[in-house]
């Protein structure tokens, strides 16, 4: 089909932009009910401690306090925080309220009171006796013989090591002219979504729980609440209105969702809970700090002969997505650059008493690609090749294996590298670090990535959509996919409008109420456009067929001779009647009910990117300024180019933060976060942002996706980190195998390297 598009491929402002920017859009914390109470969680000040007893007498005596819950008052159901249906690799290791605190901020009791202030005051009156246990915060400490066992597992391993192997690694290394082995470390950034975790719970007269929540996965919240609270699924209703971000952290449930429902049940009143920013920092999720020991062999002609890696993630006090990100991070090291299909990769996830690490944009692969792409720079230098040429020689392409097991369909990564190199005039401007002089030095570096749209085969992806035609020609699009601030609903509406031949304004997206919308597994893994979008497209195609059949009947002609464009039924370009005229009731009879439903179970498509970062390093201070980023992304088809650019720019901004300024720093003695607030946890703001040139390639559309579109949500954060680290090396000759690159560390390394103390 080669007709021009009317709605997709054009930048559309978000369909919910006006309500958001005027402050009218309602988020979970904006909902209130008459007689509502406020809930709060009492959190452990110790990183590892057994709760011996809890005395709630004084708290209960405080006027306005309606209930106190302790670990012994709540269902003792071990559960995972993460999605249902389950992966075998997830660990059920969490309790609603714990009698063994495993990180600073673990919830041990909860209170409901008539005001937030009273609830807070009551927390101070709850007396908890602890037996303090020895605590460990790093993987090294946790793996040491005799270390305290956090969940009783051997060596504090969350699960048996993940082993991925192919070919013959030893033969590959033997064949190499040069072998490099090095260890790479990544930091502990926090998600920093604008909207703190919040919920409102209420049981109606039928015993049905309604929870207004801020979650990426409403049906997962329904499933786990049902399991822990012992309620059938049809008596749990999850409502998600607008969301102020999630970045993966809102794929998990937190203690407040269970506690809030239990407090509502206990008191018979609606209960609201809203986390403070400090609670969000200490008691939700971070990215997994990971160490990767990576060994690769290379021939003098630039051929990589083998790859071996040990990937170790610090998952903190609970498993959460530790097994998932470790699996993805490990298997993704089979990708990006070829290594003669000789690899031996091992992934481990380790419990510590650090804050819980969870899903975060880039899901384990960010860490792997940092190691891989920094080492690509190192190998290029070892064999005396230009880093661009070395990457082009080894970039995966058509026919190469992908982590999902599918063979890749195009040479898209090389296309991204070539287009970016042309844009930055690489061969003209790139020079090795040895020639750089002066106080402020300029550097240029490359980072690359590839990422699947959806989590198949690890998760059996499924989305559904229902389209309902109204008698005035407007349409309700019912989807279970959340829009966590990505613009996903705008994209879904565009897909429906395009496929139906209707104006975008005629589509209204109805979402986020599990009583009304069909099942969706959730908004994560860069899957919404690809998987939920496919379900929408299929439902819209079916509805279009039914409209055309109805029109054919009415006009007395073959439906196949008709088409719908701009909301009108046409034959050979001639307008015959409008869709509104077609569907309205006639002769006092109501209109025919026109609905279509579709299910889509995705396989997998890969998006690719190459980022070219330019930096200026002040060698007197170690300060790195990113001055320009050229970001080339192959995403098949941009449904909403405006939204795609927003995703890419946002990912780069977040990635610059993770590379240079953002890190949740723990007190080495207590394990408490030292910067659990925006005063000293620093995200880059507008003045810190470089010029960004986004280039969207649409050379490798996916045959199974809506109009060829692939995911873009996570991709931009994955390439920027190594691009910056490689640019810093290019500017200074200082090789960073860790993130973040703070001026502290860079200055120390410059001094070691013998840069003179100029001041």
């Amino acid at each position: 089909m080669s007709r021009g598009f009317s709605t997709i491929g054009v930048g559309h402002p978000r369909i919910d932009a006006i309500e958001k920017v005027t402050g009218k859009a309602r988020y979970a914390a904006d909902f209130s009910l008459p007689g509502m109470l406020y809930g709060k969680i009492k959190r452990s000040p110790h990183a590892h401690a057994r709760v011996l007893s809890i005395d709630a007498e004084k708290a209960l005596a405080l006027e306005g306090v309606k209930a106190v819950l302790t670990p012994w008052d709540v269902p003792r159901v071990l559960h995972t925080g993460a999605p249902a249906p389950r992966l075998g690799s997830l660990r059920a290791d969490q309790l609603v309220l714990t009698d063994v605190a495993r990180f600073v901020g673990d919830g041990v009791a909860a209170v409901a009171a008539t005001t937030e202030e009273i609830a807070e005051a009551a927390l101070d009156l709850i007396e908890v006796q602890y037996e303090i246990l020895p605590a460990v915060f790093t993987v090294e400490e946790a793996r040491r013989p005799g270390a305290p066992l956090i969940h009783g597992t051997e060596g504090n391993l969350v699960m048996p090591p993940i082993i991925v192997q192919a070919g013959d690694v030893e033969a590959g290394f033997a064949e190499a002219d040069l072998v490099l082995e090095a260890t790479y470390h990544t930091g502990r950034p926090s998600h920093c979504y604008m909207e703190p975790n919040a919920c409102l719970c209420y049981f109606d007269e039928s015993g049905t729980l309604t929870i207004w929540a801020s979650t990426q996965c409403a049906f997962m919240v329904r499933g786990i609440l049902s399991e822990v609270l012992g309620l059938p699924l049809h008596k749990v209703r999850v409502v998600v209105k607008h969301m102020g971000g999630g970045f993966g952290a809102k794929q998990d449930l937190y203690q407040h969702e269970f506690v809030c429902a239990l407090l509502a049940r206990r008191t018979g009143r609606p209960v609201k809970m809203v986390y403070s920013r400090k609670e969000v920092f200490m008691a939700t999720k971070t990215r997994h700090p990971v160490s990767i020991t990576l060994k690769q062999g290379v021939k003098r002609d630039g051929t990589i002969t083998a790859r071996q890696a040990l990937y170790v993630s610090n998952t903190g006090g609970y498993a959460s997505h530790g097994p998932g990100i470790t699996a993805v991070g490990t298997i993704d090291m089979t990708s990006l650059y070829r290594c003669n299909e000789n690899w031996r990769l091992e992934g481990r996830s380790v419990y510590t008493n650090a804050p819980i690490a969870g899903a975060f944009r880039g899901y384990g692969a960010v860490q792997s690609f940092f190691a891989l792409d920094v080492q690509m720079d190192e190998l290029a230098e070892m064999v005396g090749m230009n880093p661009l040429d070395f990457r082009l020689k080894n970039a995966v392409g058509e026919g190469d294996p992908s982590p999902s097991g599918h063979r890749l369909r195009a040479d898209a990564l090389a296309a991204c590298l070539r287009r970016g190199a042309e844009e930055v005039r690489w061969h003209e401007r790139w020079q090795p670090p040895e020639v750089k002089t002066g106080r402020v030095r300029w550097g240029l570096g490359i980072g690359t990535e590839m990422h699947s749209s959806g989590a198949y085969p690890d998760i059996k992806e499924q989305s559904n959509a229902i389209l309902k035609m109204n008698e005035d020609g407007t349409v309700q699009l019912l989807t279970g996919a959340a829009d966590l601030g990505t613009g996903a609903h705008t994209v879904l509406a565009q897909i429906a409008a395009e496929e139906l031949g209707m104006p975008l304004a005629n589509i209204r997206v109805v979402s986020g109420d599990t009583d009304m919308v069909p099942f969706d597994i959730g908004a994560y893994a860069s899957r919404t456009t690809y998987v939920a979008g496919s379900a929408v497209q299929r439902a819209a195609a079916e509805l279009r067929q039914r409209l055309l059949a109805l029109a054919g009947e009415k006009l007395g002609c073959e439906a196949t001779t008709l088409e719908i464009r701009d909301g009108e039924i046409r034959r050979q370009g001639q307008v015959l009647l409008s869709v509104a005229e077609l569907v309205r009731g006639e002769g006092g009879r109501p209109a025919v009910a026109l609905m279509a439903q579709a299910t889509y179970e995705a396989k997998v498509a890969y998006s690719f990117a190459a980022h070219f970062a330019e930096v200026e390093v002040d060698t007197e201070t170690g300060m790195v300024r990113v001055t320009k980023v050229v970001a080339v992304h192959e995403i098949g088809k941009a449904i909403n180019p405006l939204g795609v650019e927003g995703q890419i720019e946002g990912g780069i901004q977040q990635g610059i933060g993770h590379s240079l300024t953002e890190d949740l720093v723990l007190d080495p003695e207590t394990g408490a976060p030292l910067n659990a607030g925006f005063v000293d946890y620093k995200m880059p703001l507008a003045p810190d942002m470089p010029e960004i040139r986004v280039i969207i390639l649409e050379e490798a559309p996916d045959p199974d996706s809506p109009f060829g579109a692939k995911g873009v949500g996570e991709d931009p954060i994955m390439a920027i980190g190594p691009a910056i680290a490689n640019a810093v090396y290019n500017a200074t000759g200082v090789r960073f195998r860790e993130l973040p690159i703070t001026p502290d560390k860079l200055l120390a390394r410059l001094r070691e390297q013998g840069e003179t103390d100029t001041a």
Partner: protein
Amino acid sequence: MSVQNYYLPESLGEALELLARYGPDLLVIAGGTVAMPLINEGVSTPVQVMGLRRTGLDEMARSNGNVKIGATTTLTRLLEESPVPLLRTAARNTAAWTIRNMGTVGGNLFSPPPAGDVAVALLALDAEVTLTGSGGERVVPLARFWTGFMTNVMQADELVTAITLPVPTGKTAYIKYGRKQAHTPAVVTVAAHLVVEGGRVQQARLALGAVGPHPLRCPQAEAVLTGSELSEDAITEAAQTAAGECDPFTDAIASEWYRRKMVPVYVARALRQIAQEEAAS
């Protein structure tokens, strides 16, 4: 939250009466931008709180070569209306608009390091603090106001009511070095005021923020500069001397080691700015 009473006196007299009544049990705030986050997080648990925002202590006036700034003058007003450019620069480098709209000049003297970026500029400008108590007013040089981390020379019955400084006669420079371009705690803040006549430095004032328990003057570095021709050698020597006069700390923004390394770098950069301006004039 522990606060039981919040007083908003309508005059200085009323404020002093409340202070006399409750003494150290009364937490005094102006904008509340430092105190309220601590109270909200339960770190600070005052029972009685007094806000000064209605006491009329927000006059900013210039007379006889002095500028007198009322203690509750907001940082936004300082940014927009101060006759001293250095103070406008310092205010612009302090926090964000929302905080500057609430935070006050007097309150900035009580902002624990690495905060207190306006106080650093005031210190380089030889500001004096007017303390008013039940026994009347007294004036203390800002350089002698602080005695340690979050401690000062004030009596329990006193309030900071004004800050007075001579309009600077020389050239000034102010650099706040943070990990980001804006809205960030300092690694180090440098404020300098040099009077140069006949090619020689007649008077040197150098103040540092975020590298000690409170904003610091650098008397030895000032002595190096005084009488010098502000040559690159003098600048380098003064910068190195200043590094020996600070007492930095480690936090999530920077290590003690790094802060100490950055003191000479940024002192030199601030002094070079002045030297360049001198050369151009």
